[in-house]
């Protein structure tokens, strides 16, 4: 009879995740799964609420990326109020939203790299768990820790200036934005103190990439071969093929880079994408309808965006993009740890974009809102830090929401994360008699590369318990730990 090992939850990953690895008597892996164990129905909760509440209401979903939900909901409602699909906003409306979004990308990616990824890179995936965190980084590489803290703070300040406040921001409204950037805010973000100015942010973004390149040179095995598996990739791209994190058309490429979703209008996403329910997980499995449930799954997020885009429209990030493409022979990268590289390129791109926008006078003046004829339905898509985020609403006669469907980034990455977990588990655990802390962390490192937000993916809320369960060979539970 086989034995079952449960690693639960996945530390340093938001929400409640559980990994089960089923071994046979010879230590060979039979099956590996990433389980999501909490569920609350947010989509049902919003039914019957006035549609204009959505950009604020959806921020209750999660305290980690409320800005992405705020903007995706606002984009869907732009359609409903007749302001078009992303291109109908006033220059001020679109640019203020973009600045907010780049601030969100910048702070979220910075948190991931400096707080979650750099400890693994600096101390090794099997390093001492007591050191493998930001405090460990601060003790040995203080400059890196300072950069992480201040880059995160800068992004938060951009959000505050554009969304109006840090909690339940109200900046984006159906059809536009509700404020201009003040001269004082602009000056602070452009030329703040020694640590809080946009040029410093660009310089630090480049430093982070230099750190990564140096590490990559010395650690090709882990960066190039850890959790590597073929996948299709999906994201928004600008109509001319440029990386665009705020708006565009929906493109997917297969493992070889061939287009399999041809730059379609995302208002019709449900013609191309469906979600499969599997009995062992509350999180759905999205797939491309034309290819089918079995092979139609895809990856989203920073790596997917590097694989679908043809170029980047900011010079420093474009240079890095060219290097990335060249390294991968012009083909899509399927290396999970290249996700960190892609994330750093996007940090640099976001910093360059913020500088460009902060020097644009449209932020300080001009019409804020576009008005039009109301429609009964709208879809809003955005490239959130973790990947493509879908918000879809239908309204009834009294302007109340009668249908909501959200596909969040982590749900889009459900199958790739399962593939990554299986890859790593087979590699590090096959034939081993004992499961060590290092092996378990290797599995977690693979999941962390995707930066999943499980509380959001399951539309859950509240405290997530920490559980650790061990089953013996007869499948009986012999140990269970619970922490909060």
């Amino acid at each position, binding site marked *: 009879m086989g034995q079952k090992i449960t690693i639960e939850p996945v530390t*340093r990953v938001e929400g409640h995740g559980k990994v089960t690895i089923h071994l046979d008597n010879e230590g060979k892996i039979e099956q590996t799964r990433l389980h999501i164990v909490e569920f609350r129905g947010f989509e049902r909760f919003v039914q019957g609420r006035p549609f204009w509440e959505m950009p604020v209401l959806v921020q*209750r979903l999660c*305290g980690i990326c409320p800005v992405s939900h705020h903007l995706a909901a606002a984009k869907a409602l732009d359609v409903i109020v007749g302001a078009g699909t992303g291109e109908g906003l006033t220059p001020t409306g679109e640019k203020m939203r973009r600045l907010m979004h780049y601030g969100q990308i910048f702070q979220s990616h910075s948190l991931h790299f400096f707080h979650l990824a750099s400890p693994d890179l600096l101390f090794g995936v099997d390093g001492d768990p007591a050191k493998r965190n930001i*405090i460990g980084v*601060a003790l040995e590489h203080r400059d890196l820790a300072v950069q992480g*803290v201040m880059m*995160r703070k800068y992004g938060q300040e951009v959000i505050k200036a554009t969304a109006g406040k840090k909690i*339940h921001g109200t900046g984006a409204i159906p059809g536009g934005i509700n404020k201009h950037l003040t001269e004082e805010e602009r000056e602070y973000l452009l030329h703040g103190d020694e640590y809080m100015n946009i040029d410093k942010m660009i310089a630090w973004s480049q430093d982070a990439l230099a750190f990564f390149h140096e590490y990559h040179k010395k650690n090709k095995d882990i960066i190039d071969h850890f959790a590597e598996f073929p996948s299709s990739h999906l994201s928004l791209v600008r109509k001319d093929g440029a990386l665009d994190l705020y708006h565009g058309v929906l493109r997917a490429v297969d493992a070889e880079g061939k287009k399999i979703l041809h730059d379609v209008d995302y208002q019709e996403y449900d013609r191309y994408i469906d979600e499969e329910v599997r009995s062992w997980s509350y999180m759905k499995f999205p797939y491309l309808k034309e290819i089918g449930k079995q092979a139609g799954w895809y990856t989203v997020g920073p790596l997917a965006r590097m694989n679908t885009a043809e170029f980047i429209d900011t010079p420093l990030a474009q240079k890095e993009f060219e290097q990335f493409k060249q390294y991968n022979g012009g083909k899509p990268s399927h290396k999970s740890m290249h996700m960190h590289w892609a994330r750093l390129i996007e940090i640099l791109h976001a910093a360059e974009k913020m500088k460009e926008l902060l020097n644009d006078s449209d932020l300080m003046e001009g019409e804020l809102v576009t008005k039009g004829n109301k429609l009964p339905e709208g879809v809003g898509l955005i490239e959130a830090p973790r990947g493509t985020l879908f918000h879809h609403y239908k309204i009834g006669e009294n302007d109340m929401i009668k249908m909501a469907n959200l596909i969040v980034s982590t749900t889009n990455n459900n199958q790739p994360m399962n593939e990554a977990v299986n890859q790593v588990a087979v590699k590090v655990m096959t034939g081993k008699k004992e499961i060590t802390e290092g092996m378990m962390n290797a599995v977690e490192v693979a999941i962390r590369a995707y930066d999943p937000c499980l509380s959001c993916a399951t539309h859950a*809320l509240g405290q997530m318990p920490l559980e650790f369960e061990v089953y013996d060979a007869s499948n009986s539970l012999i140990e269970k730990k619970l922490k909060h």
Partner: protein
Amino acid sequence: MISNKSLLIYGFGNPGRQDDGLGIMLAEELRAWSAENQFAFVHTDSNYQLNLEDAANIAGHDVVVFADASREDIPDFLMEPLKPSGKVEFSMHAVSPAFVIHLCGHVFNAHPQAYLLHIKGYEWEFMAAMTEKAKSNLGLAVEHLKKFISGNFVTFP
């Protein structure tokens, strides 16, 4: 009335989840109270949850009071001194107040005196309205903190 110390009251939680917004509400009430009394040494801040950047946000203050809703078995509220802790939380998308002051010490070499004010909450659903009992606990915690500030930080020139 003046103080030569800088005091930060930092509430955190999600006000869209009923009693989870207790810390935020406390910071808001203390902001209004300190403005009314012209206590320029009292500063307030709030967010959904604490994270890395808060090490920078607290570094310039002498005293920090973190305020949060609690679902633990405590009286109506509980205020206790806080010691730095490097303990890694299960989710590093949010960090504990003890972790923030620990990080602040390591990164900025600043060591503000810190307290954690727990306010007991009861309901955590997708609603803005707090429970009546939580509101009552909030009132008690606010009064306690006002006395704490008046008794420890306010002097007469």
